[in-house]
């Protein structure tokens, strides 16, 4: 039986520059017990559809046409009071981040009981009993004992279960789940997805699952709708859409997804990123070209290498990075009064080596110490024991490492969030020129500009970008600017901390391709940190697996992905959505 029927829905936002159409003429059906996936990249209008169904479209957005029928009622004609009665009762919503979707000042019991009593006239005691039964149903151990706890006493995965219990406690017929597992680790993601699937099957709840992650869709959705820029591109049963896409965009999207089972040399057939259309000037720097940048980089790399070999010929065969018995301990928040408080040990007994031209993948779940490792190497965090050396030269803990330490140039870092890693008050030219000035690599202003324009071309950006500010670019473009910036330092080792996790898949494919090309071309070493095993598969020659700050396994990438030895690695691999239907 059809539960929800959206016909010809269009939502517009009036802006200063005219109306912006967020979604256009959308049709969508969900039956009882169906999990319907809504997939698309950022800006596709996925969340807008969720907001419309919930009646929580934020002003100034408005429904320009179409209707939303649920069990015979047109929701768009309801007045706000009636709509509010429907929320909780018939419609429920799960938010992305379980850390922020529970009120920190009220106990779980309080939040559950208020919600139950809001919709049913029951006594507090029976509401409490219902609440305990629900917590039990969503898989919280010792529900009776934990119901009076506060949200911060639960882990992320447990909190999302509490959220689901809160949504279920009024028996809604339809649940809108907006990226319900995006903020969770893979192993927890898997369990939450199984829980959602059981709910749909057992309770006959319809679920509208909004996500950017095709893996999640493949895992649990019955049918899927692919959106692009507010329009439906393709609809159908999940296996059809994912395994045999018919639309050009869907085909491109599927090709851009890194697969855990297969290493690609390059991603083929990917969707072109939208070029910024506002720039029609023919401004360019004469003589600048990608070839020039390549030439400059090669020349200087050779020069620097010769210098290094001349200085320390004995060390020339040393690995780019040797990490030995490394421990990082964060100082305690409150030093103990009477007993010694050693603080939190983020990393211990870390040993590995990284050679020239090699890509080492570092994987692990949140809290495993991946980012701490990166910070300890570049010197943003002090390590407390062990040693790090590069080309045989010792790298002291960050606060003791000299500002002028020559390794500071050779180790460059690319951060996760391209929105905060570029200074928004400086032009791209100022940003890119900084390493050249700081390391006195190019002194003449004209030469510098020529090189900067060239290097932008090398990372597939237009030269005109030089005169713009970072906020004028998309996430993928910003990440390429960040890559260009670190490239200009002529690094031996590039440390990439989740470089693509903030990006859409098609853009991720671009950036990964670029990194692979540059690494081949200039024979850099890369320390590639990611929670996404499929991405690491595409990049890494060797893999280090971290768990709770310790190395669980390290070895050749192909061996790790086909026959991991540690139990934990097997678990990680098993719980990553496999997308096996794609092969």
């Amino acid at each position, binding site marked *: 039986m059809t539960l929800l029927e959206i016909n010809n829905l269009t939502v517009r936002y009036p802006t200063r520059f005219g109306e912006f159409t967020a979604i256009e003429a959308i049709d969508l059906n969900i039956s009882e017990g169906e999990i319907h996936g809504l997939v698309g990249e950022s800006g596709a209008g996925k969340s807008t559809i969720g907001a419309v169904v919930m009646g929580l479209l934020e002003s100034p957005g408005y429904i320009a046409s179409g209707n939303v029928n649920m069990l015979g009622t047109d929701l768009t004609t309801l007045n706000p009071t009636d709509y*509010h009665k429907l929320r909780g009762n018939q*419609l429920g*919503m799960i938010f992305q981040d379980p850390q*922020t*979707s529970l*009120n920190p*000042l009220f106990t779980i019991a309080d939040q559950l009981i208020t*919600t139950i009593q*809001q919709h049913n006239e029951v006594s507090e005691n029976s509401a409490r009993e219902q609440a305990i039964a629900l917590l039990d149903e969503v898989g919280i151990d010792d529900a009776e004992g934990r119901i009076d706890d506060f949200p911060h006493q639960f882990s992320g995965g447990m909190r999302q279960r509490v959220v689901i219990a809160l949504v279920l406690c009024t028996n809604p017929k339809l649940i809108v789940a907006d990226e319900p597992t995006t903020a969770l680790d893979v192993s927890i993601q898997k369990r939450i997805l199984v829980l959602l699937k059981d709910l749909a099957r057992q309770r006959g709840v319809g679920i509208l699952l909004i996500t950017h992650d095709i893996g999640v869709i493949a895992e649990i959705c019955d049918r899927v709708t692919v959106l692009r820029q507010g329009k439906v591109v393709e609809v159908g049963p999940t296996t059809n859409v994912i395994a045999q896409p018919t639309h050009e965009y869907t085909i491109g999207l599927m090709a851009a997804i890194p697969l855990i089972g297969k290493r690609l040399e390059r991603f083929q057939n990917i969707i072109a990123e939208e070029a910024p259309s506002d720039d029609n000037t023919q401004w360019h720097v004469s003589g600048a070209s990608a070839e020039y940048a390549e030439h400059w980089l090669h020349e200087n790399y050779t020069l620097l290498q010769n210098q290094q070999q001349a200085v320390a010929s004995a060390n020339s065969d040393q690995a780019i990075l040797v990490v030995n018995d490394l421990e990082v301990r964060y100082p305690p928040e409150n030093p103990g009064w009477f007993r010694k408080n050693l603080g939190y040990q983020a990393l211990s007994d870390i040993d590995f080596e990284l050679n020239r031209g090699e890509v080492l993948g570092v994987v692990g779940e949140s809290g495993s110490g991946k980012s701490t490792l990166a910070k300890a190497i570049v010197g943003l965090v002090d390590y407390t024991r062990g040693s790090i050396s590069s080309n045989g030269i010792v790298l002291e803990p960050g606060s003791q490492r000299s500002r002028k330490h020559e390794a500071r140039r050779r180790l460059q870092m690319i951060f996760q969030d391209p929105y905060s890693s570029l200074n928004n008050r400086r032009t791209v030219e100022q940003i890119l020129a900084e390493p050249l000035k700081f390391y006195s690599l190019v002194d003449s202003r004209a030469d510098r500009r020529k090189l900067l324009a060239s290097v932008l071309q090398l990372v597939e950006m237009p030269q005109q970008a030089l005169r713009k500010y970072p906020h004028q670019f998309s996430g993928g473009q910003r990440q390429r600017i960040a890559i260009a910036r670190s490239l200009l330092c002529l690094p031996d080792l590039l440390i990439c901390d989740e470089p693509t996790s903030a990006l859409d898949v098609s853009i991720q494919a671009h950036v990964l391709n670029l990194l692979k090309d540059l690494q081949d071309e200039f024979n850099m070493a890369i320390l590639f940190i990611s929670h996404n095993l499929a991405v690491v598969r595409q990049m890494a020659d060797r893999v280090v697996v971290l768990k709770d700050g310790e190395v669980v396994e390290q070895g050749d990438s192909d061996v790790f992905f086909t026959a991991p030895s540690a139990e934990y690695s097997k678990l990680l691999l098993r719980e990553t959505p496999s997308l096996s239907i794609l092969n």
Partner: protein
Amino acid sequence: MISYVARRLLQSVFVMLAVSLIAFTLFRFVGDPIAQMVGQETSLEDQARLRSEMGLNDPLITQYGRFVKNLATGEFGFSYRTRQPIGEMILSRLPATLELGFVSLLISLLLGIPAGIYTALNKDGFISNSILVATLVGVSVPTFVIGIFLIYLFGVTLGWLPTFGRGEVVEIGWWKTNLLTLDGWRSLILPALTLGVYQVTLTMRLIRSEMLEVLRTDYIKFAVARGIDYRTVHYRHALKNTMVPVITIIGLQFGGIIAFSIVTESVFQWPGMGLLFLDSIRYVDIPVMSVYLVLIALIFVVINLMVDLLYAVIDPRVRLKG
């Protein structure tokens, strides 16, 4: 929780020691205490005797130790000006200032909190915007101008309310209170309003911005998506979260009101500690000034401690961390 309180207490002790050091320096080194105390006829021998009797020849550290010990045991010494014990002087002035501060805080909370909530919930309404514009005036006009304006309007032109003094007071032990007589209340209204106007605007704007922030959070959106009454969402879920940071500021405000009611007390000739402090400055009555300094610091420290404890009551995350 116990270690949380213990840590706060220990910090408070250090703050008090630091302040008392400043007060001691003020007492000991701003002018010669003996020269201030005695008349011109006193012989040099008598002065020297007095100096050694008072222990002013002891090592500084001993003197400081004695100073702290005296303060801790309530021996505040004597005023240069009136020759009265400072403890008594302050005790007789304290109720006036505390009552004034308390009533003006009450005014600022009773007006500021509802206005803050209203302007947050009706963000772009006409009334909200009017309130915001009106409070801008409250922030920008200096306290003494407001005081003089109120005196002129209600005291001089309309003749409704007295313009100076405490009016009729009732004595409960050593505590003289305004709050039990009509005349006392009439005298209290104008100074309390003057002192409260600025606080009202501050409280209101703080509540408004905090609440707008809270209303944007996921847990509020989630509560709405669960169909919980808007009234419950706003006044239970959102307000409680709003109050967490606001309490700190309100606590500091209260301290500020007591410590810096000097201007208002002088405009209204309110016989509180502020006026006492002003007189002490005029006559370079250094012992009174240094005791006043320590006392104000103590008030701040106590209020801060109470705020910290209140924090722990409201926010479970603080409670468990300690």
